[in-house]
């Protein structure tokens, strides 16, 4: 057994010269809560804040999913099964990206204005845990939308899926975390109004100009080259490979590009959480 250090009170209770014996001793700093406790406490805190809105968010996600699948279907009158499958398996990615790039920045912007961001950062909390708890909440909000999109697709086009669960789950989580991290990074880096503008542009870009609900080949060559380095197409490929593994496959490059965006978004967000003005 290593020798124990004498307990603090013995030292501090002794009267020192020039010190009043009634002066209280310094209180010990409380031992920091464990990482897991802190994480789960932050998670409960953030979930409670979203609280009553959660069902509504899920309903809106469902409506968006229906909107994409049914609405895009109108654009293509005599949709063949292959196109329907492509559209349907792309819809979840559109939802996940929209959530990450629009709702997350809005949430973060609100937290910055109402003081939540400031408050949380003033507490003795390891910064990555703050980000982890926030991302977890967005993950909880996002995941039902995948199921909702797939259900709507079943109902509308009677598609046949071949689920590869491990790929599907990891792809969905990676796409969500990437989108949320990038959205978070935008919100903590740019002034609120500019962040809002950027996210508006991004959602437009994701919906109409990203090869998620249509094949990459339909874009001009130069734009295809651009998309090779953006997260949208790789994310869509990965989720698609999880939903219809018989028809679609994803490449290691998809994983690398998406991973790089994820790490980049996390790094910028973390830096903003740690940084002092």
């Amino acid at each position, binding site marked *: 057994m290593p020798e124990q250090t004498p307990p603090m009170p013995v030292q501090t209770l002794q009267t020192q010269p020039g010190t009043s014996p009634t002066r*209280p001793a310094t209180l010990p700093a409380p*031992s920091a809560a464990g990482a897991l406790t802190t994480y789960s*406490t932050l998670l409960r805190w953030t979930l409670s*804040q979203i609280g009553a809105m959660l069902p509504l968010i899920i309903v809106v996600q469902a409506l968006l999913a229906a909107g994409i699948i049914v609405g895009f279907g109108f654009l293509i009158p005599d949709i063949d099964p292959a196109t329907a499958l492509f559209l349907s398996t792309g819809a979840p990615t559109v939802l996940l990206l929209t959530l990450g790039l629009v709702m997350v920045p809005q949430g973060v912007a609100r937290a910055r204005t*109402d*003081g939540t961001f400031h*408050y949380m950062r003033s507490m*003795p909390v390891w910064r990555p845990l703050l980000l982890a708890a926030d991302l977890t909440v967005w993950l909880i909000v996002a995941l039902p939308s995948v199921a909702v999109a797939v259900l709507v697709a079943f109902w509308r086009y009677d598609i046949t899926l071949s689920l590869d669960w491990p790929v599907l789950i990891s792809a969905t989580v990676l796409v969500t975390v990437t989108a949320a991290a990038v959205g978070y990074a935008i919100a903590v880096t740019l002034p609120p109004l500019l962040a809002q503008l950027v996210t508006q542009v991004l959602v437009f870009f994701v919906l109409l100009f990203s090869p998620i609900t249509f094949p990459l080949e339909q874009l001009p060559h130069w734009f295809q080259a651009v998309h090779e380095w953006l997260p949208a197409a790789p994310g869509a490929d990965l989720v698609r490979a999880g939903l219809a593994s018989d028809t679609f496959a994803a490449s290691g490059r998809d994983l690398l590009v998406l991973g790089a965006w994820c790490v980049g978004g996390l790094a910028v967000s973390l830096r903003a959480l740690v940084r002092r003005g």
Partner: protein
Amino acid sequence: MTDAILEVVGLTRRFGTVVANDDVTLRVRPGDVVGLLGHNGAGKTTLVNQLVGLLRPDAGTIRVGDADAVEDPAAARRHVALQPQAQAPIDGLTPRRAIELSGRIRGLSARDARAAATALAEEFDLGPWLDRRALPEGGVLSGGIRRLTSFAMAVAAPMPLLVLDEPTNDIDASRRRLLWDAVRRRGDEGSGVLVVTHNVAEAERVVDDLVVLHHGRVVASGSPARLRGTQDSDLRLDLQLQPDGQDPSTAANPTGPGTSPSVTIRRQVRAGRRVLLTVPAEEAAAAVTWATSLRDEERIDGFSLGPVTLEDTYLALTADPKPRPDAIEREPETSEEEPAHA
């Protein structure tokens, strides 16, 4: 070797050309309640944000316990609980839950956090609101209850250093008293407490020391008695002016027309429609006579004579030599009066 839990030395922080904190030095010892006074924009919140590592100082040092808050803000944060000026983020939470979560994050066990919430609810008479959920649109929990909850969150776990930024905002008079008592109690239990406030009169009752910040600089510090300076030899004559009424004390010298003041005015401070005059105690009778005649002549609405308070000192210390909106009002009056004396 220092026994302070908070030691700030030479702290300077600029925002562009504005010097928000200018060579600020202050210390808080365990068990001490130190009031940080200052007008809006005096640099109080900037100082607080540097203590918890949300802002980086341009110069100076901050020690919190044995941690260097500038080099290692994370270590400093483990010693300090902050009640920020803005409301704590408790939407969707009940006060009970908010206090428990805050306690958990500061290292309390689930059981201790529950006990802390119950005890604090008792201390602040929060009972009826304890299990009501705060909603973003307000209504259920008033601003005052939210502020008390925010205070309770900061003190959920005993901390070596408490930093309270305007804790009494929005709180009604009776609960303000509870809150000040609670602040004092935290000090007596061993926490060092730094209370940022502009509520001078209330702070005076509980603080051990005061630091007055003005335009980012410490213009005075010390115990309330020391800052009051005049001790028991002086009195405060508080003249309540009429709307648009002129300050009669600018004419209160023996040659002033229409007055008979054989009253020595040691200090004169204008606060809105009040003029606070520090007069020697032995001239109390003369002062009352003079003030009574002013009232009879309807030059003032009323007056009171009492012991000098810290508020007088504070107002005198932070009276701005440069023209500021509240001071500008006074300028024309003075210049109008002056030819009469010449």
